[in-house]
């Protein structure tokens, strides 16, 4: 709208509420309605249209109309495409420095699978070990009990036999 000002670096342009054009400082009319809503108009043409209750979406020169009828679609599509490519997040986080993250990212899926299987196997072995240990303990304990029971008639007078490795106060 203001061709002569294109060379200036503007401080802050606002948008016309009706037409959607840029309003450079020093231009335009600001209309404040009783409900405290502010309307900015770039010129009295827009202001008069607004007061006469014309709809910007029906006037072909306004941005609202153009958006509705998708007139600038090509440009918008290009803009959107440029933003679509997302880069993988490459910053170190607490708990994993950048190198660690990158190494993990660079691992091949086979390597990962192998690692996973190894880990699972480890866990299984560990569980098996604990189970075996428990079994062994139980067996020991059972055998101990038998021995103690054999001894009871001998050592009944000596304090209470400590069963189960010291049963604590009950």
């Amino acid at each position, binding site marked *: 709208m203001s061709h002569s000002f294109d060379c200036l670096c503007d401080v802050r342009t606002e948008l016309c509420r009706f037409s959607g054009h840029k309003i450079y*400082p020093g231009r335009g*009319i*600001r*209309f*404040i*309605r009783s409900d*405290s809503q502010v309307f900015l108009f770039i010129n009295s043409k827009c202001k*008069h249209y607004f007061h*006469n209750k014309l709809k910007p979406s029906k006037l072909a020169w306004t941005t609202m109309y153009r958006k509705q009828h998708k007139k600038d679609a090509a440009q918008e599509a290009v803009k959107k495409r440029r933003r679509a490519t997302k880069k993988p997040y490459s910053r170190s986080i607490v708990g994993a420095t950048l190198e660690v993250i990158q190494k993990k990212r660079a691992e091949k899926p086979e390597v990962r699978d192998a690692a996973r299987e190894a880990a699972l196997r480890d866990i299984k072995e560990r569980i098996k070990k604990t189970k075996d240990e428990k079994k062994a303990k139980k067996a020991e304990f059972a055998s101990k009990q038998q021995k103690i029971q054999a001894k009871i008639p001998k050592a009944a007078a000596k304090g209470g036999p400590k069963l189960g490795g010291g049963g604590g106060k009950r």
Partner: protein
Amino acid sequence: MISNFWQHQQQQQRTFIQMGTRLKVVDNSGAKEVVCIQSLRGKKGARLGDIIICSVKQGLPEKKKGKYDAVPIGKKFNWKDFIGTGKVRKGNVVYGVVVRAKMQKGRVDGSQVCFDDNAIVILGIKEPKKNYSGGFYQPIGTRVFGPVPHELRLRKQLKILALAQDLV
């Protein structure tokens, strides 16, 4: 549509606030509508932020009977006489500052501002035979309704700015 547009163009665009202009009162001083008697600034009339003298046309309903009725204006002014009805009543001549004007007012950044209606805040009751001394009266109401422009800061109407709901 087109005929409407041209009609609007032909109407007067510059609408100062002058003798006979009706204004809305946007504080709780008791008056509702006021008619301008004189604008204290400007030969053509008052604009946004100016002080005017006006006569109250509509106010809060008055009490039915009792000694609080109809204090003649020439008599010595007594706030007690207005308990319960509002500080200002119909027929009083008051000072007011224009807080909203339909006519555009230029701002320092070059833009123009205009509102939807003409509204004032009542500053004080005019005592007869005494002229506006030029000081900065503060409003007699305690609440201000609706949006209020920054221009009042220059006019030193700081209390109105403090009471305002929306500062525009």
